[in-house]
């Protein structure tokens, strides 16, 4: 699987600043990295690609010293180095900017840049010099901020830039950007890319991790693809067609074309189950119209941050609607908590499965019956036999792979956790399911199984709201697709006219 080093394409004639070889990393039960090789050249943007679980984040953590490698060699600037702690990586000149801004929100902008190496005068922190330095540094990034204000006074995108400024405030040789664009809008992403290109021109070696194909091709010079903890290959971006890249990431077992093929249920949708008339919430969603019928999958198209999860939260009563009308099952509804939504027959599999979905230390059985029991109330406790019957029924029915129903759900794989969450809602006999990224972070086979489940449920007459950042999946399962951009709905693709191109066109702003 590993291409020999001599086969690797060369763009720069210079030496690699970073060369990792034979990197091994094991976690209990997981062989996360298998003999991985990785190179990084100065003056280049190198993107690390791979599906969830391919080993991207583990490789980054090895490189930043968070999880030192079990075996392998890391040569940095010509010397073999041991990166066994974040401090060691920092000292070597490897700087990292993470997806969630890892700065201190309560400290000022200037402090966030310089903490750890404050300018000093007579043994004390020299605040004026620090503020001046910070302003100068931010100016080189075309940022004009009040550096004395607390960081959390600024939006995430700005915080992200401050994090980069911190990385640049010392002599950084390698800059790692771990999915920095996930919470940025298009405009901000472009700003970031301009900055990256500037840095590249200055000779910085940049390692960029992202999910987004567009962004990969927009800035990358070189791409390394990881799959199942192994290096699939290293390529120059201009030599690697998109389809090939997808093939490399996905592997050859599954034909990506098959994913793209619409599979939506051809059953006749029934009556409208939920109807939202210009529901909105300040800072969350602007006047949204939406209706979903029984026996229909409505897909939500849109980029990250376009308001997909916000829509789900409004419909499930996690966030209250501030205006607009919501009609559920023919009756006006006002949800002030998830309980209200559950009573109306709605179930919600949240995007963040770990922190909002599963209850890790509870057994699969307890997780499955939880919503049903919550609806029944405290006193009508389901007898243990009944609980077991329900749990085993769904374990069998949905093919949840677990040794037994008493296994703590936290020990299951992501796909099986997702199925158990699905079971939790199915046990309440819902009329509508909101599935927010149900396929995130699970393997391809499980993705297909989940999507087949969605279609089967739809055929049984459930109304389903399907959210995924994989547009191909949305197109595959949805009857209709509502398209969001910047927290409002920009249009809807009716049944029979759903395809990826149309969605992208609509997101991009082409009026239809």
């Amino acid at each position: 699987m590993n291409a020999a080093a001599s086969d690797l394409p060369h763009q720069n004639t210079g030496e690699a600043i970073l060369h990792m070889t034979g990197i091994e990393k094991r976690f209990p039960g997981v062989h996360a990295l298998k003999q991985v090789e990785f190179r990084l050249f100065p003056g280049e943007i190198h993107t690390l690609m791979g599906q969830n679980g391919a080993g991207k984040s583990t490789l980054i953590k090895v490189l930043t010293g968070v999880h030192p490698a079990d075996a392998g060699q890391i040569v940095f600037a010509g010397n073999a180095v041991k990166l066994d702690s974040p401090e060691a990586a920092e000292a070597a000149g490897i700087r990292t900017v993470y997806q969630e801004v890892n700065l201190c929100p309560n400290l000022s902008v200037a402090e966030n840049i310089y903490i750890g190496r404050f300018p000093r005068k007579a043994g004390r922190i020299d605040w004026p010099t620090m503020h001046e330095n910070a302003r100068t540094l931010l100016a080189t990034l075309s940022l004009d901020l009040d550096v004395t204000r607390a960081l959390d006074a600024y939006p995430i995108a700005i915080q992200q830039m401050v994090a980069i400024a911190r990385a640049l405030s010392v002599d950084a040789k390698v800059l790692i950007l771990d999915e920095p664009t996930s919470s940025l809008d298009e405009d901000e992403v472009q700003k970031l890319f301009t900055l990256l290109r500037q840095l590249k021109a200055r000779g910085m070696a940049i390692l960029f991790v992202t999910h987004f194909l567009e962004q990969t091709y927009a800035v990358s010079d070189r791409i390394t693809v990881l799959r199942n903890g192994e290096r699939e290959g290293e390529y120059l971006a201009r030599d690697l067609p998109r389809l090939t890249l997808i093939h490399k990431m996905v592997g050859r077992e599954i034909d990506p074309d098959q994913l793209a093929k619409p599979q939506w249920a051809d059953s006749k949708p029934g009556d409208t189950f939920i109807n939202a008339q210009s529901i909105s919430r300040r800072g969350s969603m602007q006047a949204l119209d939406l209706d979903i019928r029984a026996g229909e999958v409505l897909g939500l198209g849109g980029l990250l941050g376009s308001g997909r999860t916000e829509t789900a939260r409004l419909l499930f009563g996690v966030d209250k609607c501030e205006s607009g009308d919501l009609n559920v099952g023919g009756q006006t509804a006002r949800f002030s908590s998830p309980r209200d939504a559950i009573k109306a027959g709605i179930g919600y599999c949240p995007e963040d499965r770990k922190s909002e979905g599963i209850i890790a230390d509870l057994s699969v059985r307890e997780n499955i019956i939880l919503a049903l029991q919550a609806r029944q109330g405290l006193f009508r406790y389901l007898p243990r036999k009944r609980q077991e019957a329900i749990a085993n029924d769904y374990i069998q029915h949905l093919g949840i792979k677990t040794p037994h129903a008493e296994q703590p759900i936290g020990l299951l794989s992501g796909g099986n956790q997702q199925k158990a969450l699905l079971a939790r809602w199915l046990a309440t006999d819902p009329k509508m399911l909101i599935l927010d990224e149900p396929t995130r972070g699970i393997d391809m086979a499980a993705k297909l199984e989940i999507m087949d489940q969605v279609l089967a449920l739809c055929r049984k007459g459930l109304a389903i709201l399907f959210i995924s950042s994989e547009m191909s999946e949305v197109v595959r399962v949805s009857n209709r697709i509502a398209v969001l951009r910047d927290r409002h709905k920009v249009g809807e693709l009716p049944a029979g006219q759903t395809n990826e191109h149309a969605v992208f066109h609509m997101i991009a702003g082409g009026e239809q």
Partner: protein
Amino acid sequence: MNTATTEATGWHKVLVRHPLFLPVLTLIVLLLVNRAFNAHFFHIENKDGHLFGSLIDILNRASPLALVALGMTPVIATRGVDVSVGAIVAISAATAAVLIGGQMHIVNGVEVYVSNVPLPVAIAGALAVGLLCGLWNGALVAYVGMQPIIATLILMVAGRGIAQLLTAGQIITIYYQPYFFLGAGFLGGLPFALYIVAAVGVVLWFFTQRTALGLFVTAIGINPTASYFAGIKARAIMLCVYGFSGLMAGAAGLIISSNVKSADGNNAGLLMELDAILAVTLGGTSLAGGRFSLVGSLIGALIIQTLTYTTYSIGVPPEANLVVKAVVVFIVCVVQSEPMRKLIIRDPILQGASR
């Protein structure tokens, strides 16, 4: 961690892995240490139909702590803590003392005890005050959204002031014979306080076994957000849990004041919060929330009382008791801590799961 994942390999392994194994073992060792110093330690004798002996004494004296620990257990299971229980004990004791007061009249040469208000009213009043304090804590935690330690700290600060306000700064002595039955009476040969603990235990057993309370409390403790998303009335349950803790502290206040026949706003239930937290922790309930064991907490309370008894019987000055307890707190916490468990138990499942 749930042990259901490991195959049963012989009864002794099952026994060792049982969550109550360590608490019970600790208790047995402590009892045996006592036996070594005092040959009559296990001796129980029957005097006028009342059972007497060291064991009975430990059980009796442990009952207020057992009640508070039972109340504290669900609180800790929801990731909370209630540091105000000591203050609530003082408030409840003060309330009971003020309501009963009591005088002794000699009517026709016979002593007649008269209370200010009927006994049931006084008991109900003291319990209600405890419940109210608990609900106040619960409201701050569940509805205002304060951290539990902070929310209950407020009552911890103000509580003793309130207790003294009720007793006008005095130590109120109670002169009403029937009231003493609560803390010092015997029924069927056993101290009456034991029946109170037993009754509370039965009620709790019912609630955790026959209702979904145990499931909901555990779920909230492990993942509050996910529990809310699953439709659990998390706030209402938190309110109830803190209310119950307050009620139990109120009951403990009744027993204590009945036992010492007085109410002292300054010292009743002093440092009881730590004893209760310690009892719960000793019983195997993690301070990080989640799975809890009520039986464990009862055993924890017994361990603490036995420990107190031991320090007396091996001749250490009673003042050293605090030091001994503190050392136990440190040891138990360190042993239960995650880094330590990783060090001791080289169990790949446990290690993997804690990631």
